[in-house]
């Protein structure tokens, strides 16, 4: 079953095409990678997929809902942005608690969810620390935990491991694989790292806003290694 369907989308910034005539679908339970050089349109595509922005042309359907009904599908999506969007002046607990309330959970349920996620991601000891006091790796974990608070069906991540050391990257990937394999969560992500792309089921390659490739990660590595 196709949960996410992208039909002929185009997005311009002034006269520049950020995305041009993009078409693809994402299946339930797959890890879908979006690859491309800087300025390829990956982040714009992620913004459109998460319904943060509207395409100029074409349509994105998530569980059958379009941009106008974006609030309906919000609960099904967990989003990790490229730049941190955590409130640095607030603590980890406060950031997660406020997010849980925005997703309609009661105060007591929110507290339990935070406890469970902190234990899963191993940051229980940092719950009462301000975000500004955390390392880059722990911040990323908190961002992913926040995206997972409401148990979404799809986790969308824009460069989730950017700026992290190898150890933190491996640790994050083990979480991502676990979520995908144990919970059947669909994962869409962008990445610059070839070893991360090889962990995806399918890959979409973008260049200057255009689709260059859509297929399995094995095919991608075979065809593009050294070219992208």
């Amino acid at each position: 079953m196709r949960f996410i369907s992208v039909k002929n989308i185009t997005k311009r910034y002034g006269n520049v095409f950020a995305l041009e005539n993009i078409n693809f679908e994402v299946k339930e339970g797959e890890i879908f990678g979006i690859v491309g050089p800087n300025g390829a349109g990956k982040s714009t595509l992620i913004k459109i997929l998460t319904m943060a922005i509207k395409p100029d042309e074409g349509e994105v359907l998530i569980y059958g809902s379009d941009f106008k009904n974006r609030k309906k599908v919000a609960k099904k999506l967990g989003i990790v942005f490229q730049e941190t969007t955590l409130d640095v002046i607030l603590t980890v607990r406060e950031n997660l608690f406020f997010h849980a309330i925005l997703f309609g959970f009661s105060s007591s349920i929110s507290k339990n969810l935070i406890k469970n996620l902190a234990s899963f991601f191993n940051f229980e000891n940092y719950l009462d620390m301000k975000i500004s006091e955390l390392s880059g790796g722990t911040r990323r974990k908190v961002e992913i935990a926040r995206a997972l608070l409401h148990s979404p069906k799809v986790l969308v991540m824009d460069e989730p491991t950017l700026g992290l050391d190898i150890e933190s990257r491996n640790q994050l990937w083990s979480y991502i694989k676990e979520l995908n394999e144990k919970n059947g969560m669909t994962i869409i992500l962008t990445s610059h790292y070839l070893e991360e792309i090889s962990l995806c089921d399918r890959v979409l390659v973008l260049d200057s806003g255009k689709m260059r490739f859509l297929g399995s990660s094995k095919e991608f590595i075979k065809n593009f290694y050294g070219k992208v």
Partner: protein
Amino acid sequence: MEKFKITILQIIIISYREFLKWWRNKFKVITTVIQPFIWTIFFGLGLGKIVNINEIARAINYQGEISYLLFIFPGMISTTVIFISFNFGHSFVEEKERGFLRPLILSPTPDWVIVLGKILSAGFIGALQGLIVNLLGFIYFKEISITFLTFPALLVLGILTATLGIFLGLFFKKAGSYDILLFYVIIPAILLSGAYFPVELTPLWMIRLAQFNPFYYGVETVKKVFVFSLSLEKDFSNLKELIITKGIGIFEGALYTFLFIAFFFVLINVIIKNKSLD
């Protein structure tokens, strides 16, 4: 009913989040309180020497002893509230610009709830700082008054300013560009609100223009509350009569201010209905 409870909780939590962010920035809290207090001293004691206070008293139909300091104090507090609450519009644009608004707008919480939460917190914080300045004035200047209606009047003005700030913020992508509004919209609107001189003393076209200025009604309400408070201090036994005579004016000012709030709030929601806040 459950949905209603959740909506209320979401409004409270959005407001509380903004409040915490403000409260933890102690430097900002202190400087924004001290600044209007210093202004008041210089304006009140400096400008007060050259201003014809009797003419002002006649223009505002005030009977009794009045100094320029006493006249501008409610205006100065109103300015504090307006500056602080309007600054939340800057934060709103900055959050849009830097992507911090995304976790909110991509949540299932309706956009109007997010906007309302932000407006209420901005109004509350503005009013709270206005009240602190008022308390300092009350302690320092002696002639300054304070009453149970002061905070509600400041809150209404703060909410009005925050609503206007967020409405204007919708049209800006960069917080730096939004700041230009301070010089081209906010300061002229404050001057035309009667905060520093009675609008009644200005040319007819300015009086007409003031009638379309939302701040005119907000500041008028604050000033009327001050007059009420002064009158109450002088003769507490006349409370019932005061409520009837002065209360109507306060209610009228607050009602007009509410109408402006409702107007801008509806406009915000019409704009964001089909447009992302990102």
